[in-house]
C-alpha cells in the first residue's frame, strides 16, 4: 500500500531528523536537566539536581492555568474568526481576484510587516490623544472607548490578531479554491445545482483538508501569541492578558526562574504532543 518502503522512508526523513537532532538535541537535553534542577542565571553551568519540584510549582501555580486558559480562548477564537473571514473573502472575492490578480497584493501586505513592529504601531494607533482611531471617534461621535482596560483588552488584542492574520488563512483558502477544477462546478451546474449547493456539496468538501490545516496552524499561532501583548498591554493589569508564551518568557527572564519556565514548556510540549498524536491516530483510524 505504501509507495515508499520503510528503508527509503527512513532515508528520506534522515536529513531533517539529523538537522533537528544536531541543533535542538543539545538544547533540549540541557533544558530537560534544567527542568529538574535548581538553576539561575548565575548557575547556568552548574545546576543542582532537585527532582520534580519545578513541575509541581508549575502545576500548582494558578497563574499557569490562567495563562493556559487565556491562550486556549485566544487561540480558538482568533483561529475561528480568521478562518471564517478568510474563507468568506476567498470564495466571495474569487471571481474578482481571478480576473485581476494584482488585487491579491493589498490582501497579502499585512503579512509583510513584522508582528513585533505592528504591536508597537498599535500603541500609536489606539492612543487617545495621538492615535487616529480615537481621533476620528471623537471627531464623529464625540467619545472614544477604552481599548486596553481589563474589560476590553482581550477583544482589542483579538481584533488586532485577526486583522493581521486573516490574510494568511485567506491565501491558503484562495489557493485551494482555485485548485478545484472548473469542470466539477460546471457539471454540478448542469445538474441544476445553485451556487450555494455547489459551495456546500462540492467546494467545501474539497477544501476541507486546507480548512483543517489552516485552522490548526492559526490555532497554534494564536495560542502562543506574544508580540502584540508584549507591546500593547505588557501582560495586562494584574497579568490579565498573560498568554502561556508570556508566562514562560516572564518566568525565564523577569523572575530568573529558569527551572520553572522550562518545566512549564516541557508540560506544554508533552501535552500538545499527546494531543497531536491522538489526533493523528484518530485521523488514520477514520481513513481505514
Amino acid at each position, binding site marked *: 500500500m505504501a509507495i515508499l518502503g520503510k528503508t527509503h522512508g527512513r532515508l528520506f526523513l534522515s536529513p531533517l531528523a539529523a538537522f533537528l537532532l544536531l541543533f535542538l538535541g543539545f538544547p533540549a537535553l540541557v533544558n530537560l536537566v534544567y527542568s529538574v534542577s535548581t538553576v539561575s542565571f*548565575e548557575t547556568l553551568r552548574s545546576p543542582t539536581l532537585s527532582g520534580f519540584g519545578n513541575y509541581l510549582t508549575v502545576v500548582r501555580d494558578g497563574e499557569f492555568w490562567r495563562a493556559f486558559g487565556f491562550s486556549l480562548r485566544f487561540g480558538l477564537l482568533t483561529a475561528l474568526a480568521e478562518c471564517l473571514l478568510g474563507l468568506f473573502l476567498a470564495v466571495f472575492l474569487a471571481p474578482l481576484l481571478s480576473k485581476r490578480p494584482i488585487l491579491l497584493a493589498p490582501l497579502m501586505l499585512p503579512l509583510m510587516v513584522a508582528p513585533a513592529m505592528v504591536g508597537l504601531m498599535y500603541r500609536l494607533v489606539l492612543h*487617545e*490623544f495621538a492615535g487616529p482611531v480615537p481621533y476620528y471617534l471623537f471627531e464623529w461621535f464625540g467619545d472614544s472607548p477604552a481599548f486596553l482596560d481589563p474589560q476590553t483588552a482581550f477583544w482589542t488584542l483579538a481584533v488586532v490578531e485577526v486583522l493581521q492574520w486573516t490574510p494568511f488563512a485567506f491565501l491558503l483558502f484562495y489557493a485551494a479554491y482555485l485548485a478545484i477544477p472548473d469542470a466539477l462546478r460546471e457539471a454540478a451546474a448542469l445538474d441544476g445545482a445553485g451556487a450555494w449547493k455547489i459551495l456546500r456539496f462540492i467546494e467545501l468538501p474539497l477544501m476541507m483538508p486546507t480548512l483543517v490545516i489552516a485552522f490548526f496552524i492559526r490555532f497554534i499561532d494564536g495560542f502562543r501569541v506574544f508580540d502584540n501583548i508584549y507591546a500593547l498591554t*505588557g501582560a495586562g*493589569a*494584574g*497579568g490579565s492578558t498573560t498568554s502561556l508564551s508570556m508566562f514562560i518568557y516572564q518566568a525565564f527572564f523577569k523572575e530568573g526562574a529558569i527551572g520553572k519556565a522550562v518545566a512549564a514548556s516541557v508540560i506544554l510540549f508533552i501535552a500538545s504532543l499527546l494531543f497531536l498524536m491522538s489526533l493523528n491516530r484518530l485521523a488514520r483510524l477514520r481513513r481505514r
Partner: protein
Amino acid sequence: MKRTKITLALAALLASAALPAQAKVTVLGWPGGSEETALRAAVEAYNKAPDTSENDKVELLFFNREGFYDKLQADMAAGSDAFDANLVATYSIGRYAPYMEPVDLGPDAAKVFGDTVLKTMQFDGKQYGVPTDLSLHFMYYRKDLIDALMRDDEAKAKYKEIAKAELGKDLEPKDPDSWTWDDWAATTLYFSKGVNRSSPVRYGTVLQMKNLLFNMMVFQSLPRSYGGDWTDASGAVTVDSPAYRTGLELYKKLYDAGASPRDSLSYEYAETNAAFASGQAATALQWNAAAADLTSAEKSPTVADVTGIVAPPAGPNGRADHIHGLGLGINKNGKNKEGAAKFLRWLATEDAALLYARNGGSPALTPEVVAKVAKERPDLVKLGEFAGKYGYVMTGATSANALSVYELQAKEFTGYWSGQQDLDTALSKTKSGMQDLLKK
C-alpha cells in the same frame, strides 16, 4: 551554471560579514536618545586625547532597546566577551554584579559626583561603575491652567467643592511647588471632565499604570513621602504599610474618577508624553528625560511655552523623588579590562563629566561642578538639586532581585488598580513575594 553562481554569491555574502575594525576597548552603551549622543561625544574626545594609546581606543556597541536587559542577561550569564565595559543601572546592579568587576574610579570621583550619586553604582559596598546619567521624576504641570485657576474666584470655589466631595478635605488651590499629594489630587480632579464638566482640558493627570517595572518607580515616590519603604532596617518587608495603602488608594481613586485617561492601564513613558503634549492633561508625574521634548516648541508646540516643572508633591514626610543612575562598569569576561578601567576612570574626571553634560547627557554633579555648565544646562541644576534634596533609593532596591521585586509590584499593584483584586490581597501577595525575593 546559474545555480553555481548563486551559491558562490551566497558564500561571498556569508564570508563578507563585515568585521569591525579590531576594537581595542568595546563599550556597550544605552541606544538612542541623549545618553547615546553624549557617550559618542565623550568617546570621540577620549580617542583623540594624546595620552590614549592605540590599544586603549574605545569603540561603541549598542543593542536594540527593546529587550535590552534580556539580551544583556543572556550575554553576561553565558560569559560573553563581546564587550569590555557595559551599561548598568541602579536597579540591575545586583543582578549583574556577579559577572562584573569592581572599578577604582580614583579619589576625584567623589568631588565630581558626590557620595550619594556614587552610591547608585555600588553593590555590597563596592563601586561597580561610573554614574553617567541620573534619572528622577519631575512634576510637569500647565502654568496657564494653574494661573487661570488661581485668578478666578468662581473656579476656586468649585475647586474647594470638588476637594470636599471627592477627597473629603478642605483644600484651596496652591502653587505647584508647595503641593502636597492631596493638593495635587484635588487639582487633577478639578481639571478632569469626568468630575468637572467645565474643565478646560480632558484630564487632570496622566498616570502610567501599565504592568511594567519602570512604572513602579514613578509611583513609589508617593508612598515614600508618606514614609513607605520596601523593608525596615532589620530586613522585614514593609510593603503593606499604611504609606503604601494611601498611595495605592489615591492612584485608584484618581483612575476610577476619570482623572487619568481610560487606557492608563496600558500607559508608559511614551503614552504619557503624547498625552501631556497634546494639551489635554493638566499635570503629569514623568521622568526628567521628558523635559527636553515637552519644552521644545518643535516637538510639543501645544504645551512647550506653558509647561512648568517642579519636584514631586510632598507627603507627611516631606518630598521624595526616586533616583536611579545609569552608568558603565567592567565586564568580568572582557578581553581588555584594563583598557576599560582606564576609560571609566577618565569618564569620572571633571573634564569628562562636563563634556558629557555639554553634549546632552544628564550626569548628577556636585553643586561646584554643575555651576560650570549651569548656563548651557539649567535643567542639570534642577536635577542635581532634586537628587540632593529629595532623592532616595528604597532599601533593597539594589539587591540581586530588585528588578524582580519591581516586576512583582507591577503585576500586583496594577491588578488592584484595575479592580481585579482588592488591596489586601494585592499587598499580601506582594509582601510574600518580596519576602522570597529579598531573602538572599
